[in-house]
């Protein structure tokens, strides 16, 4: 295998690759990247056996072949080379070390047998559709904060992606919950998704995908089966296993009769929550919302530090229902308001029942929050 590529191209690709490569050395070869030149085209592959990422990289190649080398080391070396460097890879084959040359810098990396590198095959992926990167980003950003990190209920450790009906229209829905909050976002169902099964996309996959989408403005191809999902973002293919479990019937926990409506500017609200919550370093301390007609009082107290209160009056809030007191974890409120553009709409039932939160200007997202006792 022999090839030449410029540093910037390699660094970008290795950046994508190395976060998938397993850093904890349970199986040493999983820390490696597979570098392959086939039919004159260079590709990088990394896998942790749950996710595989393959990226085609622009390079001028002069000999086919393949080798595996430690992803983190390779990334570090490339990163430290001068910005304009052109890097040459040379691997004679077999167990011979992989030679890297850039200007007068030379390194030879120990390789592990290419045959030992696990291949993760996607199998047949019968459901295939396209989503604009922007839409996919929106689905992820507005749900992933609610993904559970607790491993007992492993079926909550991802985003539940499935088709559903909303006001008689077929939609693609992303849902995540950790039991304390729930986020449900929907987009019109793309062509090709009408028969897709409901799938749970693992958190790590979601995060890797989100990184790949950062600078992407085009369209992403999504292909899936009951057990695997594949995202093609430009020259990158991310293939992942799905979580084998049943997502809860979340519709049953979304309240429908919450009729006490509060509207408040997102910035006013988020800033007030942040100021009031600063009184307590304890994350689980609630921020109390006390409501009267067109008046919202936010307060928090800590036995050690003292207390804080802020009022938002009729210039900032709109509330017509009866008095109400309810408490929420500040971080949970912020996670939601972070996703809201201008005005937040809260629909309360009472101080101990789940509360619905929406973006007043965008009905595609719905959030549910469990109150805390105050």
């Amino acid at each position, binding site marked *: 295998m022999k090839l030449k590529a410029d540093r910037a191209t390699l660094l970008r690709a290795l950046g994508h690759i190395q976060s998938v490569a397993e850093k904890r050395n349970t199986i040493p070869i999983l820390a490696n990247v597979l570098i392959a030149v086939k039919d004159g085209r260079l590709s990088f592959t990394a896998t942790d056996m749950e996710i595989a990422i393959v990226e085609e990289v622009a390079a001028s190649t002069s000999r086919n072949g393949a080798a595996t080398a430690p992803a983190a080391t390779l990334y570090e070396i490339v990163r430290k080379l001068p910005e304009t460097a052109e890097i040459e890879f040379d691997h004679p084959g077999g167990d011979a070390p992989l030679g890297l040359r850039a200007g007068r810098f030379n390194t030879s990396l120990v390789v592990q047998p290419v045959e030992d590198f696990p291949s993760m095959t996607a199998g047949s992926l019968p459901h295939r559709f396209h989503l604009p990167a922007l839409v996919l980003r929106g689905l992820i950003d507005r749900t992933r904060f609610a993904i*559970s990190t*607790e*491993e*007992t*209920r492993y079926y*909550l450790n991802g985003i539940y992606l499935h088709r559903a009906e909303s006001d008689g229209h077929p939609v693609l829905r992303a849902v995540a*919950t*950790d*039991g*304390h*909050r*729930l986020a449900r976002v929907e987009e019109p169902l793309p062509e090709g998704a009408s028969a897709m099964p409901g799938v749970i996309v693992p958190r790590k996959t979601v995060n890797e995908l989100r990184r790949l989408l950062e600078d992407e403005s085009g369209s992403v191809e999504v292909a899936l089966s009951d057990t695997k999902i594949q995202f093609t973002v430009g020259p990158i293919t991310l293939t992942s296993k799905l979580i084998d479990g049943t997502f*809860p*019937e*979340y519709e*049953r*926990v979304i309240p429908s009769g919450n009729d006490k409506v509060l509207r408040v500017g997102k910035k006013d609200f988020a800033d007030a929550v942040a100021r009031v919550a600063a009184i307590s370093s304890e994350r689980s301390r609630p921020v109390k919302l006390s409501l009267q007609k067109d008046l919202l009082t936010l307060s928090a107290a800590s036995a050690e530090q003292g207390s804080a209160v802020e009022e938002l009056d009729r210039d900032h809030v709109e509330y017509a229902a009866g008095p109400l007191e309810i408490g929420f974890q500040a971080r949970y409120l912020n996670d939601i308001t972070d996703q809201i553009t201008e005005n937040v709409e809260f629909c309360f039932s009472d101080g101990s029942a*789940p509360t619905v939160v929406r973006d007043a200007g965008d009905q595609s997202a719905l959030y*549910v929050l*469990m109150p805390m006792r105050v």
Partner: protein
Amino acid sequence: MPWLCRHCAPEPCGCARPHRLEHPELFALSVAHVDADAFFAAVEKRRRPELAGRPVIVGGGTRGVVSTACYIARLSGVGSAMPMFKALKLCPDAVVLRPDFAAYSAVAAEMRRLMLALTPAVQPLSIDEAALDLAGTEAVHGAPPAAVLAGFARQVEASLGVTVSIGLARNRMLAKIAASLDKPRGFAVLGSEAASLLAPHPVTLLPGVGPAQARRLAALGITRIGQLQGLRPAEARRRLGEDGPALVARAEGEDARRVDPRREAKSVSAETTFAQDLSDPTALEAQLWPLAEKLARRLRETELAASGVVLKLKTARFALRTRQARLAQPTVLPDLLFAAGAALLAREADGTAFRLIGLGAAGLAPLAQADQPSLADPDLPRLVARQKAIDGLRERFGVGAIKKGRMFFF
């Protein structure tokens, strides 16, 4: 004969009518077991002096059973874990109080503080019980352990209004047995006479001998501790199985367990030893359900919830396996305890023959935190409501009034 006065120790006795405690080894023994007498009832009586002369039963709460009965109520035959309706039949004029665990914990903490003034080697065994090792403290206190403990008992009574019973011996097992010999307000010493003193007692007095083990021993014609004494290890192993020699050692008053201050209070758990070893996964699972119910009940009785479960299995060859799993949130629902235990069991039930299965709480949380509504669990409110209904029936008609359908499949 070495003696001390329980009114005066550790000071030299100067009283007219000494309360003598004497024993040949009185000043040589250093392991103590301290157990508060009718603890919950005593705390209640202390804060409500008007109850002093009346029978008091603490219990009820989530389930209709007696948690603690004061000694006056015990005279009528009321005992712990007795259904409330039965207790009230025996003692109709009893004052029944709902448990106030916050108050009991506060007094227990105070009692523990007084223990720690005697020795750092205090191992809490339950809310009102602890093992203490006072070896090497004589130089610090200027008095032998027995004298220091007598002073401690008076101090607890004077400052907390709770009486304790103390057992003093050379090891934890004998100290615990001693503490039970002279209740309430007792102080008993068990020295080298322990073996002969234990001999006529039933084998169930020994720690680790439950109903199942007692039945197995009875089948061999062994009912009294004395019948175990003197068996040679080889013979014990042949007749009683792998743990025979250990059982004989206990019967002879030997116990190698140290007082370990790092050990937390005994966790809440339930276990059962099978009449015959079991290896079939379905049969093992069938044993797990009643344990889940028992565990749930014990948790609610102590106003606690399990934040995880621990599954305990003992193989036919006496190898112990324990496996733990965390729960999504604290629970007292038997269904959830069972589900978590069954998942652990599924991995262990690989054809190995087991003789014992146990299910316990791994990590405890206050009952108030249990089974909170969760957006991830739409079925939880239904489970909670159902359990409430079941508990209501049991409170009125007894534990056996309602059983899960699965109990009838086997």
